[in-house]
């Protein structure tokens, strides 16, 4: 596939990560600024960073890890350093494609072996994968341990692919989410304790109540504590298919993110199950992403009916310009998007689930050959259609986690583009600038530009055609700080500010978007499309003239409606 493949030296000793400088950088800023934690409990690197903040007079002056407006020093501390060695193929980072939402025979509704999923994902070009079987009583009791040897074996057999162990958390009071930890000797015990203590299914805490919402926060606090105590080297939480059933209210999303901004960092911008909308008889003929729900008792009542549908394969929270995602970004909150397979059963595969007693064994037997194509299955193999590209400093587990945590992430469907390098910089200074997820600090009134370099597809995707990028949209909004209503899900100033026509499918295209003189904090994000299905955005053509159209139930061919989205870059003037 088109992503860079120079991984350096894939190492085969994931259990022995020293706490290097890089690990500290991705580590817990919250611990550094949390004065409840004495200096003695910090690592030397963390003490050094705390002293830097102390000298700058920032500690106790409202420095938190909560948002770009509050963390100029933190943001600059996170500015990429150059590691040298020539392993910087795209704007200073290794862009590693991955998928954090994958099921196996250890899920009650799954069927494949870990090695099936990892083997296919690796073949389809993924550099990292997270195995996320559903949280459940059987999984918590048996599955977490049983899957681990399979994952360890996959790490050994596929050294070109980083394989994390995670789980799909039934978030108390809300939807599902990916939770995963850095590999290490405590990965199983940490996940197991987390699932037994905080899974909404295990704890019978699914209903939308204040108590259950508090249990979700407690779960995130447990993960943060596990990192702080060095039980695991890292933990991340990402909300999956956030709009599917209206269960993730805006205040819950804000609550997760505000409670643990180093753990709860984002959501699936696009759900998996992208084959679900393929028309019958070739496909399931359902809603794309299996987004075929309507409100239930636990749904947040404020969500409009269209929020339950996908638009260009993307979740309403992401696809609506000026919508929920933008309302978080306008607060200055780093809340990043990803795209995944949610692979349970693969469209047009020939295998069937093995037998066995899931509840007794915590897994099904290995799948068997079924002899016919399963066209009712709605999923693609990991890497086959949806990809999450992260800009990592190196090819290792902690670097992938750091890239996700920093929002150095863009996503695509169907191999629409091969590479994306975005840099915001002060115009005319020759600066390299900052990348996705990062913050550019400039003097008030300084002119800023965003350079966009896109490597077009050039090679066929897994539908055996070379996609053609038709248009790239620049979306910009003001960063206006915290909202008074934690359930806000729109923001008024965000809109499409510039569009570039492309219309070819090989080579490289570059654009420069002139932000102009910056007198207030803003953010800029990108979106691109093959241009096959567009409609005015939900908040009007003045906000988004050519946005993704609502997907047609039973007739949504995912290969004929391709989009990519980037996470934002923040631009914050001083003074």
């Amino acid at each position: 596939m088109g992503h860079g493949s120079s991984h350096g030296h894939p190492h085969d000793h994931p259990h022995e990560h020293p706490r290097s400088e890089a690990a500290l950088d991705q580590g817990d800023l919250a611990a550094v600024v949390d004065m409840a934690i004495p200096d003695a409990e910090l690592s030397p690197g963390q003490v050094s960073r705390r002293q830097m903040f102390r000298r700058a007079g920032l500690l106790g002056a409202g420095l938190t890890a909560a948002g770009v407006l509050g963390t100029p020093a933190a943001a600059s501390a996170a500015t990429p350093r150059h590691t040298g060695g020539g392993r910087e193929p795209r704007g200073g980072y290794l862009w590693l494609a991955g998928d954090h939402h994958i099921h196996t025979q250890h899920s009650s509704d799954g069927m494949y072996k870990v090695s099936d999923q990892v083997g296919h994902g690796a073949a389809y070009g993924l550099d990292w994968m997270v195995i996320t079987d559903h949280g459940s009583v059987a999984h918590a009791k048996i599955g977490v341990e049983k899957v681990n040897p399979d994952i360890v074996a996959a790490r050994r057999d596929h050294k070109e692919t980083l394989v994390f162990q995670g789980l799909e958390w039934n978030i108390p009071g809300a939807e599902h989410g990916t939770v995963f930890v850095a590999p290490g000797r405590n990965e199983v015990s940490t996940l197991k304790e987390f699932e037994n203590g905080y899974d909404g299914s295990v704890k019978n805490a699914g209903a939308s109540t204040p108590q259950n919402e508090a249990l979700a926060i407690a779960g995130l606090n447990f993960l943060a504590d596990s990192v702080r105590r060095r039980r695991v080297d890292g933990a991340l939480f990402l909300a999956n298919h956030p709009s599917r059933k209206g269960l993730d209210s805006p205040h819950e999303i804000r609550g997760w993110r505000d409670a643990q901004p180093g753990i709860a960092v984002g959501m699936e911008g696009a759900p998996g199950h992208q084959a679900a909308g393929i028309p019958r008889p070739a496909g399931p003929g359902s809603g794309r992403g299996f987004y075929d729900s309507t409100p239930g008792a636990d749904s947040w009542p404020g969500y409009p009916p269209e929020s339950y549908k996908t638009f260009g394969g993307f979740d309403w929270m992401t696809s609506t310009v000026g919508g929920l995602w933008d309302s978080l970004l306008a607060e200055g909150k780093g809340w990043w998007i990803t795209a995944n397979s949610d692979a349970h059963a693969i469209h047009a595969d020939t295998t069937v689930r093995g037998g066995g007693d899931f509840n007794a064994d915590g897994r099904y037997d290995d799948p068997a050959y079924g002899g016919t194509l399963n066209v009712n299955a709605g999923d693609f193999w990991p890497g086959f259609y949806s990809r999450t590209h992260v800009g990592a400093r190196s090819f290792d587990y902690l670097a992938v986690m750091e890239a996700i945590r920093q929002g150095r992430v863009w996503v695509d469907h169907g191999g629409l583009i091969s590479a994306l390098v975005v840099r915001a910089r002060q115009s005319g200074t020759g600066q390299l600038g900052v990348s996705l997820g990062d913050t550019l600090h400039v003097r008030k009134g300084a002119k800023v530009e965003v350079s966009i370099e896109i490597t077009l597809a050039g090679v066929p995707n897994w539908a055996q055609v070379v996609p053609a990028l038709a248009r790239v949209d620049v979306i910009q909004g003001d960063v206006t700080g915290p909202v008074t209503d934690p359930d806000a899900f729109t923001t008024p100033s965000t809109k499409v500010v510039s569009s570039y026509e492309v219309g070819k499918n090989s080579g490289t295209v570059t654009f420069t978007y002139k932000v102009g003189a910056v007198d207030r904090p803003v953010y800029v994000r990108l979106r691109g499309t093959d241009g096959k299905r567009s409609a005015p955005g939900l908040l009007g053509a003045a906000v988004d003239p050519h946005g993704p159209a609502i997907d047609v139930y039973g007739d949504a061919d995912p290969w004929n409606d391709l989009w990519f989205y980037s996470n934002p870059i923040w631009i914050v003037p001083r003074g």
Partner: protein
Amino acid sequence: MILGLDTGTRTLTEAEHLLHDLVKALGLGEDTVACTHFVRTGDGPPHVACSLTVPHLPGPAALPDGAGTASGAGRTGPEDLAEGAALAAIAHATGTGGRLVLFPGHGALTGTLGVAEIMARSGIERVVVLAHTGDPAPDTPVVTRDFVRPQWCDGKIVLLTMPAADGRLMPAEVPDPTPCCADHG
């Protein structure tokens, strides 16, 4: 008159069963309007309350054990459930909320029908399409899947639809949504 009823049920399916059972037990006619409502009362979990039109208030024997009811200013049963029943009855009476399970003509909404035909055959007063401004053309086909659940909206009975294959529409609520953690085919 409108009767609100709340048994604390958590799912639409259970609430619909409750309504069908009640209509049968009370011998109510084709013109009954029966709705489900999402309510949040007291310390309990969010749940589904019901409302329906009745010619006169049924006696306690005709109602499910432990249910809360509300009609006008009258309330019976546990306080939380009576409050849920009242919220349902008020939303129904004012046409501000509620999802209609039974309504005049609902039995005639089967197969594929034009937008105008749906409104002619039933109490549905307007058909709208998600993410589209402007109402659909009167002859636009709607694949009902024999499952039509309009909503009260600003005093009108409105059917939300979404685009379906071949330029047709279908109700935005499908009869068989994919459950969580269920087989995905």
